[in-house]
């Protein structure tokens, strides 16, 4: 053993070994430290990444929010202007109803309605103002309102009606959603085809079925449409694609917010798309009453129609269902409320016609000859009286005319003298 210990080589070997061990231990330690550092860094990195995505998302959200706010108020202004213009147009149409300008006024009105609808759609996507509050309206009128908001409204045909009203809260949203459906239907079908609307009652409420004769949608498009309508609601105006497609996104938002259902997943019998808008019972009411001119005009006319039997038959089914109380021949009611201008509405006591029905009585053909054969003295007196009144009023008018002409003639001659 001692001979080994004396060997310096062994000592050297020992030293080298010790050094190696030391180095290895050191390296190990360094590696461990490095590893820790790496994992720390990695953690930090993921942390950063997370924060980054978060802040990007929030920045985007903020930007979206800002865009939405700006668009919302801008659209609100536009909607207000469109509404104002619509009122002006209504007034003009009343004022110039007799002239040929009317035709052009109606055109302008149509364009204005489309413009208003566009603004409304964008406003809806931005969570904004939907428009003016409406009165309860019949389903039929809401459909026609929607019809008026699209470009090709002439191609839309309403084939059936129901006796239901739409509650005031959803008149505007339903009209807007339906307008978007009709817009799609008319834009994706050829210009010489008709878009049909059927309104039907179903156990769950009322459905409005829109059939177009276009090319329809493939499965992918249909799936996308259904997603837009049900789950994947668009918020804001981002993600509408380019060119932006508002229609389904708007309908999706509206149907969620107001509680009606829209589906576009079936094919129409004409090969195009069949879209169905379901109005549940909560959104329906009875038929609205006519605002002005309640039955004042129509009911008494029907009462006075000479033929007793066919008259009730001839009364249209469209007489508001919710009206029976008012429509019933109330005894001796002189006034039916007042018009918009506050003037009392009088109940007509005789038919409106200036020429009484004779041989071609509209609904009373069989009754008329019999009545004339057995004319009572009282009737004869009434007829003669009417004749006399008539001639007298005729003469009175003529005299007035004569006075006027002479006076104007006098005036004009005076003018000539002065000039």
């Amino acid at each position, binding site marked *: 053993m001692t001979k080994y210990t004396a060997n310096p080589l062994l000592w050297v070997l020992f030293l080298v070994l010790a050094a190696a061990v030391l180095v290895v231990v050191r390296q190990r330690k360094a590696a461990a430290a490095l590893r820790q550092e790496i994992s720390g860094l990695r953690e930090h990195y993921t942390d950063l990444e997370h924060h980054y995505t978060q802040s990007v998302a929030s920045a985007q959200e903020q930007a979206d929010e800002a865009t939405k706010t700006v668009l919302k108020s801008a659209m609100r202004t536009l909607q*207000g202007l469109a509404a104002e213009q*619509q*009122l002006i147009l209504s007034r003009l149409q009343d004022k110039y109803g007799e002239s040929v300008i009317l*035709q052009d006024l109606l055109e302008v009105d149509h364009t204005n309605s489309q413009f208003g609808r566009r603004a409304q759609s964008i406003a809806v996507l931005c969570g904004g103002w939907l428009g003016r*509050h409406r009165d309860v309206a019949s389903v039929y009128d809401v459909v026609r309102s929607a019809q008026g908001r699209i470009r090709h409204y*002439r191609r839309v045909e309403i084939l059936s009606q129901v006796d239901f009203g739409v509650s005031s809260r959803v008149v505007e949203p339903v009209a807007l959603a339906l307008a978007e459906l009709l817009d799609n239907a008319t834009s994706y079908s050829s210009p010489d085809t008709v878009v049909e609307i059927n309104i039907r009652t179903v156990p769950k409420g009322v459905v409005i079925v829109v059939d177009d004769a276009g090319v329809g949608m493939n499965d992918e498009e249909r799936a996308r449409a259904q997603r837009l309508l049900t789950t994947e609601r668009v918020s804001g105006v981002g993600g509408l694609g380019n060119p932006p497609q508002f229609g389904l996104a708007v309908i999706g938002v509206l149907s969620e917010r107001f509680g009606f259902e829209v589906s576009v997943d079936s094919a129409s019998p004409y090969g195009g798309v069949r879209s169905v808008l379901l109005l549940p019972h909560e959104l329906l009411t009875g038929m609205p009453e006519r605002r002005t001119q309640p039955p004042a005009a*129509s009911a008494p006319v029907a009462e006075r129609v000479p033929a007793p039997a066919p008259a009730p038959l001839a009364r249209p089914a469209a007489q508001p269902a919710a009206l029976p109380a008012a429509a019933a021949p109330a005894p001796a009611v002189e006034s039916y409320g007042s018009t918009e201008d506050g003037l009392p509405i009088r109940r007509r006591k005789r038919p409106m016609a200036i020429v009484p029905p004779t041989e071609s009585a509209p609904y009373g053909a069989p009754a008329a000859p019999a009545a004339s054969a057995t004319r009572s003295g009282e009737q004869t007196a009434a007829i003669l009286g009417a004749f006399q009144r008539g001639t007298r009023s005729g003469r009175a008018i003529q005299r007035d005319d004569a006075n006027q002409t002479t006076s104007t003639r006098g005036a004009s001659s005076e003018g000539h003298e002065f000039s």
Partner: protein
Amino acid sequence: MRAGGEDFEFEPADLVRAYVITKGRELPDEQQLSLITLVTAAPQDGRRPARLTPEEQRLLDICSAGYLSVAEVAGHTRLPLGVVRIVLAALAEGGHLLTRPPVPRARNADKDLLEEVLNGLHRKFG
């Protein structure tokens, strides 16, 4: 307009616009349907066709008791006169309405002719 509230609202315009009621038809020409043309509902056997719009139904109701002038019919509705004329023309085209040209205004008898007759009578009998 309502003051105060967030919703500034105009009084709402009509829900159904006039051009939808006319279905985009053109104004009828003056000869076909003037203000003083007389209209009345055509005699119907039994029920009226169901596919008339409420406005058409109402106009038929108004005209159902005998001849009325177009101007008078329009007076009983809230619609602009031209719109009423368009709808009435459409109804007439569809055979739901009969029109009758206005009664021509009575003219004064020709004075010369009367004088001639008088002279003739004088010659013959006087």
